[in-house]
């Protein structure tokens, strides 16, 4: 009935051009579209502007591989499997990546504004912090604030005229070319059903001009439409879909599999240096495809991560071990 939205993993990565701005589904080390991130690295994508509510392991992969010019967000690390983002940290020190800092709520409200078509949001969070220090407007310092995709100002202050609530900070909508999502189910026409916390997925999908959804499974559209009130994202907000089982690995997915803590610990431990990153990428990314990657991980590992259907997580996974 509708135009076919299916694409391949390779095509998904090709939609993201050198210089695109992009964002992702998920939260820190959960539901990140890693298979597409790996494909972007294989395709040597450059000069990306990553704007995200929060970063995580995928950010570290993209940073280490030299794909990013700009990272606008609030946090990066691997949670308990790696306490900070060593690749971002190294590239910031070397001035290879521009980092623009906002608070977590600010990033969320920036995407919510973009999703509802408003040019900016009004909030009172983080007043008085160095996040609002005018000297630390890094995109401004780099002369990139053209008022087109990147706002003319990092923020503006105003007073509430309605209730005398005091200082308000205005923060620009997060305008982004492409959102790449990784979810449990997508229908043939693009309807998305996320199980568990949906994080900031509905907002980033609507904020982006193009939305790509990678799912554990593509299901009959009609199946999802039987319970419209349980769906998360509307058919027409999704431009492209693909099925990619375990596509979030090494990050986790509610109801499907846990975070592969040992994998992340290994990545964190080995990629403090560029040489270490390159070696890790040669081992796990370059020259591989998604199926080789799964074979390399092996059944034993994946069965250990598999979630129990009643609990939605794996009772076998020891959280990355000691």
């Amino acid at each position, binding site marked *: 009935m509708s135009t076919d939205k299916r694409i391949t993993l390779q095509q998904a990565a090709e939609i993201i051009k050198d210089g695109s701005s992009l964002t992702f589904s998920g*939260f*820190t*080390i*959960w539901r990140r579209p890693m298979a597409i991130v790996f494909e972007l690295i294989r395709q040597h994508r450059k000069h990306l502007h990553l704007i995200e509510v929060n*970063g995580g392991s995928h950010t570290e992969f993209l940073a280490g591989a030299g794909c990013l010019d700009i990272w606008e*967000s*609030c*946090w*990066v*690390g691997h949670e*308990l499997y790696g*306490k900070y*983002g060593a690749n971002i*940290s190294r590239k*910031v*020190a070397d001035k290879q990546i521009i980092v623009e*800092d906002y*608070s*977590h*709520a600010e990033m*969320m*409200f920036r995407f*919510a504004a973009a999703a509802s078509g408003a040019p900016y949001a009004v*909030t*009172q*969070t*983080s*007043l*008085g*912090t*160095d*996040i*609002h*220090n*005018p000297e*630390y407007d890094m995109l401004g310092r780099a002369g990139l604030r053209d008022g087109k995709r990147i706002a003319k100002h990092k923020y503006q202050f105003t007073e*509430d005229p309605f209730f*005398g*609530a*005091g*200082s308000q900070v205005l923060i620009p909508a997060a305008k982004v070319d492409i959102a790449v999502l990784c979810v449990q189910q997508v229908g043939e026409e693009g309807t998305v059903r996320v199980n*568990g*916390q*949906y*994080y*900031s*997925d*509905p*907002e980033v999908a609507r904020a982006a001009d193009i939305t790509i959804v990678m799912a554990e499974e593509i299901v009959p559209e009609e199946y999802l439409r039987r319970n419209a009130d349980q769906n998360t994202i509307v058919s027409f907000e999704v431009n492209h879909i693909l099925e990619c089982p375990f596509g979030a690995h090494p990050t*986790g997915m509610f109801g499907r599999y*846990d*975070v592969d*803590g040992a994998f992340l610990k290994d990545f964190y431990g080995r990629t403090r240096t560029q040489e270490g990153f390159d070696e890790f990428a040669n081992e796990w990314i370059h020259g591989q495809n998604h199926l080789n990657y799964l074979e390399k991980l092996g059944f034993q590992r994946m069965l250990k991560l598999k*979630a129990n259907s009643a*609990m*939605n*997580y794996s009772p076998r996974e020891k*959280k*990355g071990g*000691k």
Partner: protein
Amino acid sequence: MSEFAKPEEYGLADLLCSAASREVGDNEIVFAGTGLPMVAIMLAQNTHAPNLKLIFEAGTLDGRPPELPTSVGDARCEMGASRASGLYDAFSIAQRGYVDLGFLGGAEVDQYGNVNTTCIGDYLNPELRLTGSGGNPDINSFARRTVFIMVHEKRRFVENVSYITSPGWRVKKWPGGDIVPRQQLYGSAYRGGPSAVISTAGVFRFDEESGLMYLDTCHPGKTPSEIRDLCQFDLDISRVKGETAVPTREELRIIHEVLDPDEIFIPKVKKG
């Protein structure tokens, strides 16, 4: 209440966890970060505050995880929750004024409770870029009280933090950067601020008038002047109430048998 543990029965992490859990009142709405804060809150939920409502930043509201989540994005957060949604919900609830208490961490803190989790050294030429703000400033902006749990080292208790990530009792008014009382800047969004810092040396609180940090209790084995020497600013030690209460045996049992049997966040003390 069960008996207090003997010195050889608990470690420093146990002490911090127990002290932090006592900051929570029953029926309070608490915003919890990953790690030790999460253990502390779940300890309170399993002892004196069975009706506290737990919010996880990633979008789980009134969660009752049967086992310790590894992070706030974890599927474990959602078991028994009232609602699992997303960050817009969690931060809207916080900005709307629902949150009584937030538990946070930090790399550096100053005498006004300003906390840094962004970078060490000059922001424009950082010695070390850290994780970044995360929800630290947001929870700290909106909660009635916030409690920071920190490693105590002299390089962390500083005159001026490298970067104010999270607002204390005296903050910068931009664009000039003048130091002003927090309440003046926050207007009707003002509800409170940092109420305690629990470090590996002691428990610190803040003077309501001056906004300055003072030492409230020393952890067993530490003296006030030792602790003052562990701060780069001139810490007020005139109001010390005594020693930090140590964990009870029941608390230790809950921490190590119920919440964190695998020692993910809190190591067990080797006995004998």
